[in-house]
């Protein structure tokens, strides 16, 4: 199993470690998932996301190439700005969802999910050579080993980070990048995240990661594991590749269709020809049972309408929330369905995510 540069910090804090996408990662600290979740909603928490992949796309055609390869529009990015995006396959589905940052004019940093780095790299490297509309004059390379990545999230995250870095962060708007130093160490901050809260993702040198982590710990930022990361992103209504999105899911049939911009993109024609016979929806359940991945969604007569992709009980609101792919006919806000939990139908209402807005 691979270890991030922060592995020993997690072990020293008595984190419960699990295998995740080939990495040895903290699922939670002794604090527990609900308290970690609340720390992010009410104060500030930090996550080691160094397992995620960083790919560099560089060259005179870098913008044109990423515009062809990804569903959002990188041409809209100014230098030092990022956007959420998706990488389509040739079957109307997705290879991964991504964050795309423009560094300078024709140099981009693409952040991919840990489990998909290899597939994203292989796809981009093949697509850059393919014609038409390529070949593109651009190179795609894996920079993952060059970066450690921490996410600091929560209403007090910006204040806590601001005290530690040289730059003034008040002018750094959402989705903007800034290069600065943290206690003398070079860091790159991106004002974004995966929890719905304000905060930063901090790119730093692997050799500095433990020192950055400890400074944040001293600043009162709560260490949070992958468990809280999952409950937070679900409550904020963000998808997780492998659950809500996969090689067979058409993003046009999801609440994330806004990502798809009107321009030529590899695979987009297939995606547009696909009918939305099923749609991705949010569900709010009665009671506190958890609708887990794979559980069946039923109508009043007990007919199977689809399946849950993720579910949890929010430690903040105590609401039982889920996302599910269901028959398009029933995918209307306010429609009452049920989720089969341990053989019993539990009433659920179709509710557009997010389930919580800070």
């Amino acid at each position: 199993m691979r270890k991030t540069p922060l592995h020993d910090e997690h072990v020293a804090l008595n984190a419960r470690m699990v295998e995740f996408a080939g990495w040895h990662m903290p699922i939670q600290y002794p604090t527990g998932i609900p308290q970690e979740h609340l720390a992010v909603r009410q104060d500030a928490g930090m996550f080691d996301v160094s397992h995620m992949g960083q790919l560099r796309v560089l060259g005179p055609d870098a913008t044109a190439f990423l515009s062809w390869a990804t569903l959002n529009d990188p041409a809209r990015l100014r230098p030092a700005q990022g956007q959420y995006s998706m990488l389509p396959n040739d079957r109307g589905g997705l290879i991964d969802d991504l964050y795309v940052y423009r560094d300078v004019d024709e140099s981009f940093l693409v952040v991919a999910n840990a489990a998909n780095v290899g597939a994203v790299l292989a796809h981009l490297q093949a697509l850059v050579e393919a014609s038409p509309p390529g070949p593109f004059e651009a190179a795609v390379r894996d920079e993952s080993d060059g970066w450690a990545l921490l996410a600091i999230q929560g209403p007090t995250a910006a204040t806590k980070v601001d005290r530690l870095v040289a730059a003034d962060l008040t002018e750094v708007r959402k989705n903007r990048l800034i290069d600065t130093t943290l206690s003398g160490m070079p860091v790159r901050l991106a004002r974004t995240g995966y929890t719905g809260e304000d905060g930063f993702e901090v790119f730093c040198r692997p050799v500095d990661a433990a020192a950055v982590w400890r400074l944040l710990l001293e600043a009162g930022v709560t260490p949070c594991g992958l468990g809280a990361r999952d409950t937070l992103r679900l409550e904020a209504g963000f998808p997780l590749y492998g659950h809500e999105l996969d090689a067979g899911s058409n993003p046009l049939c999801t609440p994330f269709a806004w990502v798809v911009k009107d321009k030529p993109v590899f695979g987009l024609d297939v995606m547009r020809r696909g009918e939305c016979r099923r749609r991705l929806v949010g569900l709010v359940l009665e009671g506190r049972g958890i609708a887990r991945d794979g559980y069946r969604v039923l109508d009043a007569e007990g007919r199977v309408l689809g399946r849950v992709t993720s579910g949890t009980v929010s430690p903040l609101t105590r609401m039982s929330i889920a996302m599910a792919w269901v028959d398009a006919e029933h995918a209307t806000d306010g429609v009452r369905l049920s989720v089969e939990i341990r053989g019993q139908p539990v009433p659920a209402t179709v509710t557009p995510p997010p389930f919580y807005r800070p």
Partner: protein
Amino acid sequence: MNTPDHLRFTASHEWATEPADGIVTIGITDFAQDQLGDVVFVELPDVGRSLAAGEAAAVVESVKTASDIYAPLAGEVVEVNAALLDAPEAINTDAYGGGWLFRLRVADAGAWGGMLDAAGYAAVAEEG
């Protein structure tokens, strides 16, 4: 491992108090709550239900997983811990006290002595 000597245990991580007037109190062990993580929901049996030894009687659900809880002894459910419906986290904070699940009027009070004692349970739990 926290396994009080006055209780008896099952290999499936339930505990039971010694029968008093034929009534035993059932819960899950400290080891079990630690493995489950933060409990968010419990399903308790109906009062009056008759349970066979080893029958699925309750469900304890954590953020991570849902786990069936089995009746360690045969008997009739006489009381459930309704406080857990609003505060299921008592299972994590007080597994052998406030986190109790239900009480059984046992059919055979002598069967309790045949359950695992603290040392026997600790050995089973450590093996995983």
